[in-house]
């Protein structure tokens, strides 16, 4: 059985080794090998402290295992080369099928690379001179750790696949991805701590925690073998094996459930009276509020924005820098805008209903703006007020009173305008899988809206900086209201004039701007490709290698000069709360500080705009040439 499934999987892999897929696989293999090589180098190098290589490997293994556990759920489905459903009509028991599929799960590039990475256990045992027995234990531990990792990944992915169908799961996924992203964006905070750890060793509680995680049990076994503590060795290795077996049992149970039960129908909706909706605009707003609370995707996004704002602004407290705290509300508003600018794409072909109602476009846009403000403004204001009180930064009030209303108004305008001008077609709500992870996010759109919304606050910023104390708040309020009104009006006009084209786009998934004709209207059943982050989707596959590399590098790196070396030190200089850390400008003489900050921001903007410009050029080109996102070679 397992042999047969392994042969099938190898056949599938062989057939899919064409063109782009092969390139992806090779890129993945090379990246993984480089990371695995890094772990082996860490294991084989000389370190100032004897415990340091073990701690470093512990962190490395923990991250590696976390990648196996969360990666498939967060970045797409997991390894489904062989889908269990294909075998459901054959006469296998679920446990036998699980055994076969588990066997096949160890075939592939990722398990191989992981085995290389875990072989650092053998290297570290040899390097530390723990003896032949410890080296042998290292070999055994590497294999057991691989087994545990792969099976646990299967189990966790299956569990998350089930949990993601509920609100709690949506909130959990939002929390995890928000903390990861916020952590990446503020990793500058952690760099001084990491540098200290590399010199003087990790704090004891940290080492203990790292060793206590299952990913650290292999290291525990190797060290214990070196010191002749055989009961510990046995306990650690048995623990790894037992965990693997438990994961396999759990996965088999979930597999049975997946193959034999259908998704339960939704719980009865909580019906509010909605008595305040008496006219066209309030009716739209009331409907939107129901979508915010009933749509898992929207709910997920909202929790993400909140978690991101909190994590991003609280993390710098690790180096005693409360500088971001008063801005938590503003960051939240900015992110809610960024993730809610696909209003029409998310509703799908439902647009037809509004097209059949005379004058509905204007009411629809205004109603959606009202709902966005009702959802966003109260938490923004509460977060802002609470954090100001908490930090005692009352001097910041002109800034906050200017920027918060400007961002709220700008967000209310930008979201509807981008929703109309740049929709990202998704499958219709009732055809989407229950698993919200299947509905990818369009990162280009998120980025675009973040920039545009932040830009709408520019007048308020300059009013505070250059004007008298009352100018900022007034500009913020008036500017925010004007932005919401003006951009909303543009969106409504555009929606009114081009609704048929927008509907065709949402229906077929192909922008009418492409010269290549849209596919004919099938009677319904639009199954749209899910958006993915592939180069093809961004049109970048057409770009020459150099430009492609430039776009990716500039869009990835522009945040360092723009935010980390530009806006953050600018905020510090403005507020007078200076933590030098790695901020170049703050280490320079005073008269060079502002010029450096401005140069950094300019450099970041140049990288960002050129990267975006080139990227958008090739995106437009790919649309003109009519390259289908999922078209084969």
């Amino acid at each position, binding site marked *: 059985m397992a042999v047969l499934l392994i042969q099938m999987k190898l056949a599938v892999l062989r057939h899919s080794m064409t063109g782009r897929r092969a390139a992806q696989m090779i890129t993945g293999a090379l990246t993984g090998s480089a990371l695995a090589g890094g772990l082996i180098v860490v294991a084989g190098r000389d370190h100032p402290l004897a415990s340091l290589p073990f701690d470093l490997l512990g962190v490395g293994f923990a991250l590696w295992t976390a990648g196996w556990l969360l990666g498939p759920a967060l970045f797409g489905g997991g390894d489904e080369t062989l889908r269990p459903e294909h075998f459901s009509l054959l006469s296998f028991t679920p446990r036998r099928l699980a055994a076969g599929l588990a066997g096949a799960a160890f075939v592939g590039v990722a398990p191989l690379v992981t085995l290389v990475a875990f072989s650092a256990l053998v290297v570290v045992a040899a390097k530390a001179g723990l003896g032949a027995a410890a080296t042998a234990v290292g070999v055994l531990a590497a294999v057991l750790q691989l087994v545990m990792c792969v099976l646990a990944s299967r189990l966790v992915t299956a569990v998350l696949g089930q949990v993601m169908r509920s609100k709690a799961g949506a909130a959990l996924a939002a929390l995890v991805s928000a903390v990861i992203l916020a952590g990446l964006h503020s990793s500058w905070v952690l760099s001084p701590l990491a540098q200290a750890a590399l010199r003087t060793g990790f704090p004891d509680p940290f080492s203990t925690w790292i060793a206590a995680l299952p990913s650290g049990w292999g290291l525990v076994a190797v060290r214990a073998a070196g010191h002749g503590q055989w009961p510990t060795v046995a306990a650690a290795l048995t623990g790894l094996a037992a965990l693997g077996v438990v994961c396999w049992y759990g996965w088999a149970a979930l597999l049975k459930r997946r193959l034999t039960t259908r998704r339960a*129908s*939704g719980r*009865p*909706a909580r*019906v509010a009276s*909605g008595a305040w*909706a*008496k*006219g*066209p605009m*309030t*009716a*739209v707003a*009331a*409907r939107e509020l*129901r*979508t915010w609370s*009933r*749509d898992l995707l929207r709910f997920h996004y909202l929790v993400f924005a909140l978690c991101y704002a909190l994590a991003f602004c609280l993390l710098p407290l690790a180096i005693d820098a409360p500088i971001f705290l008063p801005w938590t509300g503003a960051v939240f508003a900015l992110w809610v805008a960024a993730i809610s600018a696909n209003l029409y794409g998310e*509703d*799908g*072909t*439902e647009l*037809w*209903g*509004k*097209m*059949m*109602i*005379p*004058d*509905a476009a204007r*009411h*629809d846009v205004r109603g959606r703006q009202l709902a966005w403000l009702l959802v966003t403004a109260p938490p923004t204001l509460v977060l802002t007020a609470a954090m100001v009180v908490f930090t005692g930064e009352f001097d910041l009030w002109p800034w906050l009173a200017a920027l918060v209303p400007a961002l709220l108004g700008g967000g209310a305008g930008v979201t509807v305008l981008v929703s109309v001008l740049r929709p990202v077609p998704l499958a*219709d*709500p*009732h055809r989407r899988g229950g698993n919200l992870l299947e509905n990818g996010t369009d990162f280009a759109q998120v980025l675009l809206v973040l920039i545009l919304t932040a830009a709408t606050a520019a007048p308020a910023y300059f009013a505070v900086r250059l004007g008298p104390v009352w100018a900022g708040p007034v500009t913020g309020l008036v500017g925010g209201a004007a932005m919401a009104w003006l951009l909303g009006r543009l969106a409504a006009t555009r929606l009114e004039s081009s609704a*048929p*084209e927008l*509907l*065709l786009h949402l*229906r077929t998934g192909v922008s009418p701007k492409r010269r290549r*004709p*849209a*596919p*004919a*209207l*099938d*009677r*319904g*059943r*639009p199954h749209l490709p899910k958006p993915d982050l592939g180069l093809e989707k961004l049109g970048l596959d057409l770009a020459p290698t150099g430009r492609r590399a430039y776009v990716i590098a500039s869009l990835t790196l522009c945040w360092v000069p723009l935010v980390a070396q530009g806006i953050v030190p600018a905020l510090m200089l403005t507020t007078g709360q200076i933590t030098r850390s790695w901020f170049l400008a703050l280490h320079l003489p005073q008269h060079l500080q502002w010029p450096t900050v401005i140069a950094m921001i300019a450099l970041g903007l140049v990288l960002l705009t050129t990267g975006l410009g080139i990227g958008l050029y090739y995106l437009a080109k790919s649309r003109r040439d009519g390259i289908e996102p999922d078209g084969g070679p």
Partner: protein
Amino acid sequence: MGPSSTDTALRLAALTKTFGRKPVVDHIDLEVPRGSFYGLVGPNGAGKTTSLSMAVGLLRPDGGRAEIFGLDVWADPARAKELIGVLPDGLSMPERLTGRELLRFTGLLRGMDLKEVERRAGELLTVLELDRAERTLVMEYSTGMRKKIGLAAALLHAPRLLVLDEPLEAVDPVSAATIKAILQRFVRGGGSVVFSSHVMAVVEQLCDHVAVIASGRVVASGPLRAVRAGRSLEERFVSLVGGRIPEVGELAWLSS
């Protein structure tokens, strides 16, 4: 020419749409008399959905005109759309609302008075037997329930012409009977209905007029009796669109 001065509920004149190089709808002319129950039949891919989408203002035609009671749908959409109720096939609805919420918000968006909306919505839900699913979201509805709530939304503002794309497709017999009864009552009350289907029996049962569409063109149209020309609609349809029925000797291995 006002809405009351014409005897034609829907007129399509040389309506054309091309996707790629292939004309999907090729200069279609169609005249639906006021008060008629008009069936549009054709094989899959004949252009029925595309024609109806252009006729009601959901898909911009490449050429030709679509008129509703004499009003050009594309030149004067607001007035034309007041007069029609539409039920497309396979498109989404406000999925995260209950049936009652959907009707209430649709009516309010139309600018109707809240009290009147609630009265009509209550009556429609009762007649369509959707009042037992008060707390079920539309996305959890069965196919039959989806068609019924779509029909309710199309009827809410008391239109004069109903344009329905496959209203009975994949609908259970009980729901289908309800829908048919409502449509017949709508026509008796002076309304006009245009609907597409590829179930000949339904068209023969309900319609007084029929048009056969194949490859984007109208190949026959008029009163049902005239189009049938003394045969069953199915035989006539197959002969018009050039289908082929398996002969006796073929697939002999199927009888074991």
